């Protein structure tokens, strides 16, 4: 579904991505793990159209999408839930969700997806008129995921969705990711919580200072000595 080929990205003089290649097959959960500053967010932001590549290719369903503005990437079916949730604090929960559907014009489809989001996150439905900024951290994360789903994406990219959440909520977030995957969404997941994300991932990449140093199935990497030492606390 998504193929990234030899992608290079620079921020001024900083060479943030040094030729990475990633494949995300349709229907799967693929995860990208790595330490702070490895380039995980940069990868997602480049796919989403927020950051310009220096060289390389980003193919979505066989078509190059690099250079597209973010709104076109969303329309094509790729959505990104940014790091730190980035809920609109001054807008109601419902307005936040409707923003997710901004690129769509199919009223019936939007209604259906709203109902689906309410089913996934009943807590949001009780708080539709509440301002986004008054939600708890966990609720905000649910809203961020729900908002992303409202664009009716084929590929959902999530940047550290478990960041800063209590262990119980972390578990809930990973369960939700599995659920939406089972309901047909392809997922590209960036995480620092290597253990939990490798457990649910079909395939995984390890990123270190702008390069892929290791890849394999989630299970393979869980069993890998280097991964265990570097990311799973020995």
């Amino acid at each position, binding site marked *: 579904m998504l193929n990234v080929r030899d992608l290079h990205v620079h921020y001024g003089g900083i060479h943030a991505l040094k030729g990475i290649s990633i494949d995300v097959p349709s229907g799967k959960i693929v995860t990208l793990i790595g330490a702070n500053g490895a380039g995980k967010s940069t990868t997602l932001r480049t796919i989403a159209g*927020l950051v310009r590549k220096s060289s390389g290719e980003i193919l979505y369903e066989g078509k190059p999408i690099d250079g597209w503005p*973010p*709104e076109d990437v*969303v329309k094509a079916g790729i959505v990104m839930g940014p790091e730190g949730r980035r809920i609109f604090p001054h807008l109601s929960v419902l307005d936040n969700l*409707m*923003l997710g559907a901004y*690129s769509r014009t199919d009223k019936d489809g939007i209604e259906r997806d709203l109902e689906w989001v309410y089913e996934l996150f009943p807590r949001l439905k009780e708080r539709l008129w509440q301002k986004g900024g008054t939600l708890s951290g966990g609720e905000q994360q649910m809203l961020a995921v729900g908002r992303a789903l409202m664009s009716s994406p084929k590929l959902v990219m999530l940047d550290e969705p478990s960041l800063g959440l209590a262990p119980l909520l972390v578990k809930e977030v990973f369960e939700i990711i599995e659920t939406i995957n089972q309901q047909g969404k392809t997922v590209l997941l960036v995480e620092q919580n290597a253990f939990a994300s490798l457990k649910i991932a079909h395939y995984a990449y390890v990123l270190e200072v702008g390069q892929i140093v290791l890849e394999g199935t989630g299970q393979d990497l869980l069993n890998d000595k280097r991964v265990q030492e570097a990311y799973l606390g020995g």
Partner: protein
Amino acid sequence: MSMAMFIQHLFNALTLGSLYALIAIGYTMVYGILRLINFAHGEIFMLGAYFVFWGVTLLHLPWFLAVIVAIAVTSLTGVLVDRVAYRPLRDAPRISALISSIGVSFFLQNLAIVVFSAIPREVQRPGWLVDIIVVGKVRILPLTLVVPVLSFLLMLGLLFIVYKTKPGLGMRAISKDIETSRLMGVPVNRIIALTFGIGSALAAASGIMWALRYPQLQPVMGVIPGFKAFIAAVFGGIGSIQGAVLGGLILGIMEIMIVAFLPTLAGYRDAFAFVLLIIILLVKPTGLLGEKLEDKV
């Protein structure tokens, strides 16, 4: 002062206040989204006024049509200014766009001098707007009824767009977080263009009504009203539409009433707005209805 006099002053005050408010909205909306003080906004106000009288005197359009055309053309001019002078600087340090706006302001003023000439022109006003109505002891200029009412309707229309439509939702999102808005599929450049279009249309409406109220056109006519409306926007809380309206009304009412009640101070009329600005910046820097706006990247 008699009651009748007071009522007349009140209508005058509401008129001036509405005119400031309409301009102030454009400053506040653009600032809310781009953190840019658009110094060329006063010139947009001026163009609106000139376009209408061009339409009436040169093209012999009926008044109503001339007003519609002038507002549309001014609105497009505002969009064009953004496209040419601000959009290329979107990723540059914010001071660049600010300087660019000062440049646009001078450019439009001088263009107006070339095209319209610097000689002030008198405005021929339709009789029904200026034939005094007498109600008991109160003598009212119909214009001072029409301006507040029309302004109020325009503001209602604006609130509808901002709070009840999809582009309005886009505007409210962008004003808080441009990057995340883009990730949600909001076409940011188009929404910014729309913001300039709406702000410029309201400034044009204000310019046209201003020229009917104070019937003289000149290329620098936007400078003082522009400055005062900017102060009104800051006073009300820059970034807040309701604040701009409130600030504009308060400034207009106080200006007229001070001149009316303390005629000895009439000479300080223009300085008064700046005193108000200094006071609010000292007492409540975010303005009456403003919240602290974070700097955006």
